[in-house]
């Protein structure tokens, strides 16, 4: 293959990605236009409650997951760093990061729902359990380790492990942790099956349950909701990218 042909091929692939993203955005906007002409319908209906539930559940799940993820990360990176338990932990977290959400959903429905009842807290707990392996996986792979020499210096000065964590490791990792939190938040916001099975009143599950309706206004509202969701997720992901920027593919 000639160099020029190949370069054109590469360029075409970039163009096609651009077209794909532009086309998706265009379709979402075009389909949600009818409902923006009837703002009353959008405001009066139950649509805003879905947005509220989506954000509430996502933030709650992230808040529940955060201490556990950070604990696992500390075990991996600080307390047991370099030992077998750390590599095993990283391996298991990698494996579990991609368990299908529908499996989590049916498991929670049959095993946890009889105990916890059917409410926001249960959904958040299940989403948190689901996101923990993913967030640990991101942290392990993308947050740089604190240079060993700095930590050793602190230990030489007589610091306890906690003091090393608090004064050296955490300030070093803060940006990475926030970015990992953002990425996890984006993943929770887009989660469909767990929420549909257990709760059913978030943006994704209302789309899943009511998509394909013949009512133009209703389908317009669904597309408007999805547009809103995409805007949030894109903002969150791009913010995470800027926080990781120093260490991520540069």
């Amino acid at each position, binding site marked *: 293959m000639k160099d020029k042909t190949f370069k054109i091929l590469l360029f075409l692939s970039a163009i096609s990605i651009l077209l794909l993203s532009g*086309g998706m955005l265009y*379709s*979402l906007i075009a389909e949600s236009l009818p409902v923006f002409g009837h703002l009353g319908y959008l405001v009066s209906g139950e649509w805003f409650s879905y947005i509220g539930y989506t954000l509430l559940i996502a933030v709650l799940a992230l808040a529940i997951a955060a201490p556990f993820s950070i604990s696992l990360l500390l075990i991996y990176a600080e307390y047991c760093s370099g030992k077998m338990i750390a590599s095993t932990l990283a391996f298991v977290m990698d494996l579990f990061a991609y368990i299908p959400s529908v499996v989590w959903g049916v498991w929670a429905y049959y095993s946890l729902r009889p105990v916890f009842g059917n409410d926001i807290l249960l959904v958040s707990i299940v989403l948190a359990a689901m996101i923990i392996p993913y967030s640990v996986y991101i942290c392990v792979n993308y947050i740089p380790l604190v240079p060993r020499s700095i930590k050793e210096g602190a230990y030489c000065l007589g610091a306890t492990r906690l003091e090393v964590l608090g004064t050296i490791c955490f300030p070093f990792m803060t940006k990475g942790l926030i970015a990992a939190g953002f990425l996890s938040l984006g993943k929770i916001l887009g989660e469909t099956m767990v929420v549909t099975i257990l709760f059913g009143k978030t943006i994704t599950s209302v789309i899943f349950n009511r998509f394909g309706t013949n009512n133009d206004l209703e389908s317009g509202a669904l597309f408007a909701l999805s547009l809103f969701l995409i805007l949030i*997720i894109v903002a969150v992901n791009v913010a995470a990218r800027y926080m990781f920027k120093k260490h991520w593919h540069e």
Partner: protein
Amino acid sequence: MSRLKSHRIRIDRLVFGGVVFCAVLAICPLIGLIFDLFVNGYKQIHFDFFIQVNPTPEEARLFQSAGLLIPGGILNGITGSFSVVAIAVLIAAPLGILMALFMYDDHSSRFSNFFHCLIVSLMGIPAIIAGMIVYLWMVEPFHSFSALAGGVSLAIVMLPMIIYSTLDALNTLPANMKEEGAALGGTYTNVIFLIILPAAKDKIISGILVAASRAVGITSPLIITALGSSEVRWNVQEPVSTVSMLLWNFFNNPSMVDMVWTTALFLFLTVIVLNIIAKSIYHGQIHT
């Protein structure tokens, strides 16, 4: 002085205990999930499970009320999953690798940052919304649900993952490999195809496998694009069922609880096995 020291050490131990406690608690749901899947799922595992299509609700109710195992299996789901994921890989892998090569080549230009942001944004698009868009583009105009539409919606989800894993693989190569190739007299195309891609091959393939394992478990966009079917179909223009869609269908039938568990177990093991294979390839334990 010694009292102060012991106080500090005590707090340190307390925090360590808290961290271990939280870590153990975080592992509990994973253990619970595996335990429940195996305990409730093993019953339905028999040879028929892999070679028969899914049972109807009436059959299931009949056999269950007689105290027998539910007949039938998930063959239509397995073939459907295979064809849908294959379509998705065939679309997403070449495009993703080309795009990663473009971004690898284009390190310093001012578009590089823009493309990074674009790919990160694409990565965040929820699967269900990818499904909605494919519904608009492929299902509505042709008035038919199809395996092809399902494959395209999975491809949209897989594409950014493949781009990033390929880019990761390319970036782990020694920095001046390209220049060395060029110094040997290779053209740009030669360098890419004879040096860069073979050197990164294992990691690229591993990334594609990981993306495929994610695609295997995706349910929601397929239900609004591939619809489902209770027979084995290889025609990509007709609706199909995948394993994850069958799991959802079984879940909606109260008489099929046993099938739900076994299908979930199957899906879980498929994803785990795919990931383990991908990891072995990544670390060079399996040679491609």
